[in-house]
């Protein structure tokens, strides 16, 4: 028994370096909970490992900075552990709908980073004419404004044809930015068209650009009101005035605040 405990204690170092195979790691974590000296030692050894980490510092890619800082405001933060009183949870009740949308899973984080990357890409893309530059800049600025809106929230939905659609919505700005990932290319010369659908009818928000590496760059939908829905349909080249096919995705714009 004590020999076994001793054996366990020897694992502090490997644990602090993430060098335990999964099964042993799980067993050691259980042991840690009951072994205060082990926990103390692990703490010190983790600090030591952190020094080893600090010594590896190299310059990180510059584009990473813009992406991460753009993604942060779109990423809901975890509440403090265990000390969230019910009252506070109630206070947030008004935004229950939002929390479902904006609490990112691992996949959510990846999607947000992809979206941020698309925006940054758009902002730095080389354009050839002055006219294009102006257009691209104003589109980028509008998109950046939605992403930066204090009430921006992200919603993701699978499309019926496969792939997924991600929208960043700002009720305050009345705007939404829509990107897609993994949607199959529409047959022939057809393309995807984005619609803002309200009780009074559907209004085109433009065609989705051809996808790059499975993703489409962001498209801005304006004058979006709570209760509207965003829809995407497959339409003939150049688009149509009204949707003519069943949407591959219909995304409600939540009514909050």
């Amino acid at each position, binding site marked *: 028994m004590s020999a076994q405990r001793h054996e366990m204690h*020897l*694992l*502090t*170092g*490997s644990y*602090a*370096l*993430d*060098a*335990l*195979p999964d099964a042993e790691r799980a067993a050691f974590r259980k042991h840690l909970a009951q072994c205060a000296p082990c926990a103390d030692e692990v*703490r*010190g*050894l*983790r*600090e*030591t*490992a*952190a*020094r*080893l*980490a*600090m*010594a*590896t*510092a*190299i*310059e*990180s*890619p*510059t*584009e*990473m*900075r*813009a992406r*991460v*800082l*753009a*993604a*942060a*405001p779109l*990423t*809901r*933060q*975890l*509440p*403090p*552990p265990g000390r969230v009183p019910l009252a506070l949870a109630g206070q947030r009740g008004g935004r229950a709908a939002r929390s479902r949308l904006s609490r990112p899973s691992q996949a959510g*984080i*990846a999607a*947000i*980073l992809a979206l*941020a990357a698309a*925006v940054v890409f758009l*902002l730095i893309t080389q354009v050839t004419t002055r006219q294009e530059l102006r257009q691209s800049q104003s589109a*980028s600025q509008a998109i*950046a404004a939605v*992403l*930066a809106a*204090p009430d921006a929230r992200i919603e993701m939905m699978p499309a019926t044809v496969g792939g997924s659609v991600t929208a960043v919505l700002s009720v305050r700005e009345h705007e939404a930015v829509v990107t897609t990932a993994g949607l199959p290319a529409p047959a022939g010369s057809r393309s995807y068209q984005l619609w803002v659908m309200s009780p009074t009818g559907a209004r085109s928000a433009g065609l989705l650009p051809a996808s790059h590496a499975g993703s489409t760059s962001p498209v801005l939908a304006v004058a979006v009101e709570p209760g509207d829905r965003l829809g995407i349909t497959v339409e003939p080249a150049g688009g149509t005035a009204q949707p003519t096919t069943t949407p591959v995705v219909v995304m409600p714009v939540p009514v909050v605040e």
Partner: protein
Amino acid sequence: MVRFESPGVNTPSTTPRQPGPARAEQTRAEHSGRDLESLLIRVARGDHAAFEAVYDRLTGPVYGLVRKVLRDPAQSEEIAQEVLLEVWRTASRFDAARGSAAAWVMTIAHRRAVDRVRSETSSARRELKVLPGPVSGDDVAELVETALDRQRVRRCLGTLTPLQAESIKLAYYGGYTYPQVAELLGVALGTVKTRIRDGLIRMRDCMEVTW
């Protein structure tokens, strides 16, 4: 309730911006040591400026560590940005009573890198690229920047026995499990376990880690 009404406060840097060497220098001087802890506490409250400062201070080591383990620049960038965003997302879980902010972040970074290495698909990819040679003895020295940290680490690694130093480097920088380290070095499992622990304890004392 904290709200960010002023766009000036909350505007994320979607435009590429110059990090600015002078500014980075200042940030480093201002936020050395304990300040990183108070910055993280502000990050937990949704403070973007604080997150920016944390980013600037830790992006180098996070990217460096992940890159050291994964080697592949594209994968490293992907993981590093996930780690930094994870810092934003989970800042409220940081507990200053249980360790330093740097250790908290570096633990997340190392764990993520190691998870990637050990997931099946990438391990196949990685073995192709990396296995030809274990981490060389010069690896720590080859990296430039944060010269003081590096110097101290190098000096302290130098006080270990070669087997201790090699085991620690393979485990931490190489992302190997201790049985893999044992196999690579051709020594018994029990030996590696004790060498890693003894070596780390010696490193801790040598670097005067106070936790």
